[in-house]
């Protein structure tokens, strides 16, 4: 144990089924006591990572360590990890009490100690008084709590949660998000939560891993990932975004939609083609005279908190705007935005290169060591 904070470490872990690679050389570290989310579309490998940690499957290549020890071939029943399953996987032949007591009975604990621990776990998930109910008598939300109680009663070092909220209705789901976050703080153990719901991930996590096609695209805090997505996939997957082609004329100056704008990005080669991302809520509607960009409003939807306005600029790019102000379909409006709202994404940049570039902004020192991809010729937009 060199690093006391690290509890799980993946090193170049690959998982293949026949010729199908579901996880491709993934490396990361999980720290003790934090709430992690593995976020990505279905088939991205997030559940595979969870199953590897739980011990239901073994990696094809690479090593997984737990508290500094390699656990590649330690079976699931010998790991100090417990899982809350997507379908809860509660035992239908046992009542609530016996479901929660299952792990303790396996450990041959004394009856009195079991009863005490089960009751404590039930209190923890606000289900006191339900111990003698059958599982079939419990609602979806209550089953969810039983599943959590059954896992935490074993005092695992890590709790794995496999899309546990996906079967609940919206209101209950939002409630459970708060409760899970609160539960993690009270227990102080590591939570690894798998979801395809970006709002859930942003609301609950200390750290998010965004996955796609068996690879980690980006990792960081929710604000990091939302504000500085590394590429088109992450920008698109997390929140809504306007992504238009452009190029970096020079440091702090980007060109897109046929115009040049001041921005805060640097470290690109002159005239390097890039993608420009601006969040819909960073666009402010003004008059056509004051706007940085002119768009013709194509459609408008009332979303409750804001209007969702969509329109096209002169270069033909579509822009999505979230505004509390109303626009009129068919009319032109001006859009205004700050230099900080412009996010420049380089093609094919790895997470390491991306992080180094961002660190350079903070120090305002162009980092010459960043390799610049040689992409021939600037694009004409």
């Amino acid at each position: 144990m060199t690093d006391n904070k690290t509890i799980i470490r993946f090193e170049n872990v690959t998982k293949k089924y026949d010729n199908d690679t579901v996880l491709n050389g993934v490396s990361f570290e999980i720290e003790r006591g934090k709430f992690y989310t593995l976020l990505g579309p279905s088939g991205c490998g997030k559940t595979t990572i969870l199953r590897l940690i739980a011990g239901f499957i073994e990696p094809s290549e690479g090593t997984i360590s737990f508290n500094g020890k390699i656990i590649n071939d330690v079976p699931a029943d010998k790991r100090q990890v417990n899982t809350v399953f997507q379908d809860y996987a509660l035992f239908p032949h046992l009542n609530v009490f016996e479901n929660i007591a299952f792990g303790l009975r396996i450990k041959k604990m004394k009856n009195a100690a079991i009863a005490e621990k089960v009751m404590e776990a039930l209190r923890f998930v606000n289900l006191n008084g339900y111990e003698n109910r059958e599982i079939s008598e419990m609602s979806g939300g209550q089953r969810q709590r039983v599943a959590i109680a059954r896992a935490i009663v074993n005092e695992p070092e890590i709790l794995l949660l496999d899309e546990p909220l996906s079967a609940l209705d919206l209101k209950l789901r939002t409630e459970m998000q708060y409760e899970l976050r609160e539960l993690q703080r009270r227990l102080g153990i590591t939570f690894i939560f798998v979801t395809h719901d970006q709002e859930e991930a942003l609301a609950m996590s200390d750290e998010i891993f965004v996955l796609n096609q068996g690879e980690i695209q980006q990792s960081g805090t929710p604000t990091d990932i939302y504000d500085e997505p590394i590429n088109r996939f992450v920008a698109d997957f997390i929140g809504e975004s306007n992504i238009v082609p452009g190029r970096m004329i020079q440091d702090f100056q980007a060109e897109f939609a046929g115009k040049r704008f001041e921005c805060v990005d640097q470290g690109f080669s002159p005239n390097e083609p890039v993608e420009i991302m601006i969040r819909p809520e960073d666009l402010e509607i003004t008059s056509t005279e004051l706007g940085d960009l002119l768009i013709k409003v194509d459609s408008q939807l009332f979303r409750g908190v804001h209007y969702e306005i969509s329109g096209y600029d002169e270069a033909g790019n579509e822009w999505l705007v979230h505004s509390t102000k109303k626009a009129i379909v068919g009319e032109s409006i001006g859009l205004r935005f700050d230099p900080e709202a412009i996010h420049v994404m380089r093609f094919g940049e790895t997470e390491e290169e991306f992080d180094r570039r961002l660190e350079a902004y903070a120090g305002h020192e162009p980092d010459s060591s960043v390799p610049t991809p040689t992409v021939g010729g600037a694009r004409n937009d």
Partner: protein
Amino acid sequence: MTKTRNLYLIPYIAWMLLFVATPIILIVYDSFFDVEGHFTWGNFQKFLTPVYLRMTFNSFWYAFLITLFSLLVAYPTAYWLRRTKHKQLWLLLIIVPSWINLLLKTYAFIGLFGTYGFVNSFLDWVGIGTQQILFTDFSFVFVSVYIFIPFMILPIYNSLEEINPSLLYASRDLGASPWMTFRRVVFPLTLGGVKAGCQAVFIPALSLFMITRLIAGNRVVTLGTAIEQHFLVTQDWGMGSAIAVLLIIVMAVIMIATGNRGARNTIR
């Protein structure tokens, strides 16, 4: 709407009346008459004599043995079947013999178990020498188990298939070894299938009669054999009917008793 639906029910009701209700009523009626055609309680009184009680005991004992051995073979088979690759093919191979007429299969065993049959020539070749296999308790139970096995495998296999695989992961996740997982999760969840299978074997096994003659050479006399003998040989229809009535009552009691428990188990 209700009129046309009633029309559809006619064949079913006609069938039930003609081939289920009427025979039962006739048998109950017959059971109260002696050979001369006088009303009597004597048939039921005769049933309580040691000869018939012994037959009853035999019937239950052999039905129990057949059920037990069927279960011992069927459970591991069903368990293995669930994990195998070509499930449907194996399942078909298990079901196909049950499509073949029971008598044909029984005659096949006479050929196999006979003094000059395949099994004896094999034993001879190995050096054990010819054995009396046919006309023993062993061959009776063996052939019956062979015939009933598909009816035991299918319900158990179905109950295994119904188990949500994540329950097995959950059990391992909570620290249970593969054996513990079987004992605490898999087996309790297949109890419904085991009960259904035992019912499907035990009840018909109670009234077996052709196999008793062909394979066991009437060394094993069960209630089924007695009924057959009374109707076809001694012509004492009253006594045959009385045994049949008692057998029907016993079967109904078993079905109600095990059926209820099975149902409760599936709800949980």
